[in-house]
């Protein structure tokens, strides 16, 4: 098992570091406290891992994972909010939401598994759109743009989470992330994972080896959707609200796609790193850039160019372009780590 030890270590290293951060904060001065900010990153990482099953492992490009997240958030909200009769606790609601996500993934997957990659991408894009629409339109159930709120906070062994202390939330989300990482890792290094990767590499050859490609793709859809729904449920519990349908738009889906691709397709550690980088980017770079502009008085404050929010898209877009130009395989591609460990070098020129 030695060649894989290197890869196994990386995402566990990241998770371990994350687990240590709140403890470190006990000794660091307040200016260094950023643990609170990491919680959304954990949830985006879970979303990214869900997309990773579809795109990273199986090669099915999905441009509408925000839809699955929305389904998860709203399901959780409907199941827990006291304006509806269900009023389940955090744990049962989350479990049920995952099952609902599974069903929705299957539902979307069934008519679309035969589609070629790019057709599937556009269809998933459309799906992302209409889920938003449907959630907005069915306002007797979903309360339209108001969203469903307030939601009761999670409880664990009698202790109810509050918004004052962030540490319980932090460790709750980190624990979920760790479990998701473990399950994904297990799947990757197993019969199912091999089948998925073979479909991504060469679907026809895979079918000729006896793999039921339709079933495996459906499985990828279902499990990926379930994970994204989990992210949605946790998000809703975090916000204390289902959020409004407009929150689960293409930007979230794009964020997830960028996390997977910038991190390194198919590599779990890459997705974690990607989540950190993409989410951290908007915080750090954006704010610093605009304060730089203001400090040097390059623009007057009434100008549209002055507001930091107005540069968001431009900088993010440029960053993506540059990233793809100079490192298209992502920050931590899964095979690179293997290739690094096998200095045997490339094969001789192939027969064309």
């Amino acid at each position, binding site marked *: 098992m030695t060649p894989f030890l290197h890869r196994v270590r990386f995402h566990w290293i990241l998770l371990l570091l994350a687990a240590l951060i709140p403890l470190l904060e006990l000794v660091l001065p307040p200016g260094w406290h950023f643990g609170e900010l990491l919680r959304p990153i954990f949830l985006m990482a879970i979303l990214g891992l869900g997309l990773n099953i579809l795109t990273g492992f199986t090669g099915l490009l999905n441009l509408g994972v925000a839809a699955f997240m929305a389904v998860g958030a709203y399901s959780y909200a409907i199941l827990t909010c006291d304006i509806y009769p269900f009023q389940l606790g955090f744990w049962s609601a989350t479990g049920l939401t995952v099952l609902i996500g599974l069903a929705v993934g299957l539902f979307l997957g069934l008519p679309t598994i035969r589609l070629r990659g790019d057709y599937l991408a556009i269809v998933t894009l459309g799906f992302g759109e209409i889920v938003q629409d449907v959630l907005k339109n069915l306002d007797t159930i979903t309360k339209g743009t108001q969203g469903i709120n307030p939601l009761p906070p999670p409880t664990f062994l009698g202790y109810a989470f509050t918004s004052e202390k962030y540490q319980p939330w932090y460790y709750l989300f980190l624990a979920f992330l760790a479990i998701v990482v473990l399950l994904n890792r297990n799947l990757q290094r197993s019969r199912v994972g091999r089948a998925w990767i073979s479909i991504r590499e060469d679907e026809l050859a895979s079918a000729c080896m006896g793999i039921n490609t339709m079933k495996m793709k459906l499985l990828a859809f279902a499990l990926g959707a379930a994970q994204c729904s989990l992210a949605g449920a946790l998000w809703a519990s975090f916000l204390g609200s289902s959020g409004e349908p407009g929150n689960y738009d293409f930007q979230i889906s794009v964020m997830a796609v960028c996390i997977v691709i910038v991190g390194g397709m198919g590599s779990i550690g890459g997705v974690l790193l990607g989540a950190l980088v993409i989410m951290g980017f908007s915080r750090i770079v954006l704010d610093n850039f605009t304060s730089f502009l203001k400090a040097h008085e390059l623009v007057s404050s009434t100008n549209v160019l002055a507001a930091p929010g107005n540069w968001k898209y*431009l900088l993010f877009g440029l960053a993506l372009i540059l990233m793809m130009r100079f490192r298209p395989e992502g920050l931590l591609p899964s095979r690179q780590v293997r290739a690094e460990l096998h200095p045997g070098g490339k094969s001789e020129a192939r027969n064309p």
Partner: protein
Amino acid sequence: MSGSEVFLQELIIGLSNGMIIALIALGYTMVYGIIELINFAHGDLFMLGCFCALTLVGALGLDQLAPNTFGVRGGLLLILLVTPAFCGGLNWLVDRLTYRHLREATKLAPLVSAIGVSFVFMNLGLFWGGLRMAVFGMGRAAAAPKDFPVLISNDNLLGQSAVQFTAKDVMVLIVTLPLMIALTWYTKRTRAGTAMRAVAQDRVAAQLMGIDVDRVIGQTFFIGGLLAGVASVVFALYNNSIHFQMGYRAGIDAFTAAVLGGIGSLPGAVLGGLFIGMARAFCDQYLATRWTNAMVFAILILVLVFRPSGLLGAKQKEKV
């Protein structure tokens, strides 16, 4: 309005909107056909074209003139020449700077780059909206939608009839139809067009035949942008409102239309565009506006279940 009049009205609305969608879809499907890139930035390019057209309207002072006058017509003609050139040139430039370096990379690298370009364009649209010009509504927020002056009259050409068929609808037809015919002639009859088809079918073989592939791809981007530019002028004249986030909606419609008709197929894009335009019009009228998007999506899925390559798409045969 009687039942048949309603139907006819929806037909006209559907056709006009459909032609615009078809134009955008054409530009998108051409680029896809040649390098298999889902060009996310295409819708936002369309949006920039609208902003360019509005800027020209302001610069030429067309908003001060009455519609349908000679000055307005001349100005519009100029805008119809400059805006497509702007869009085409911008598209070509983007290819030159970004996608050209990614020809050998995995398919997802150009896709993410296109997403990046889309964001850049969108932000440019936002900044553009803050331009201090009367037509942009001085003093209003940069992010607000801008009114596009009525330069083509809204009067019903059918006189007192309940069915509305205005000069705007005529404009849509006289601009889009010749353009589509010209495009068909270009791809089928000229050497440049044939080179384009050759590169789309087999890049290596085209190279071996001595075709400068990068140049042909650049030309395709230019023409695609050109089509988006024309669509943007037509759209702005027809709908009289532009917004820096409109590119996304237009893009989705165009992608859906192209996929419905079969990506890579030019007639497919036109067919898909018309289909979507009509479907929208009829859904708005006979069902409920809030369900139109879902309906269009359902139609897309339905078509793809029975024809996975789209209506006119070629079935992909893998060489084993």
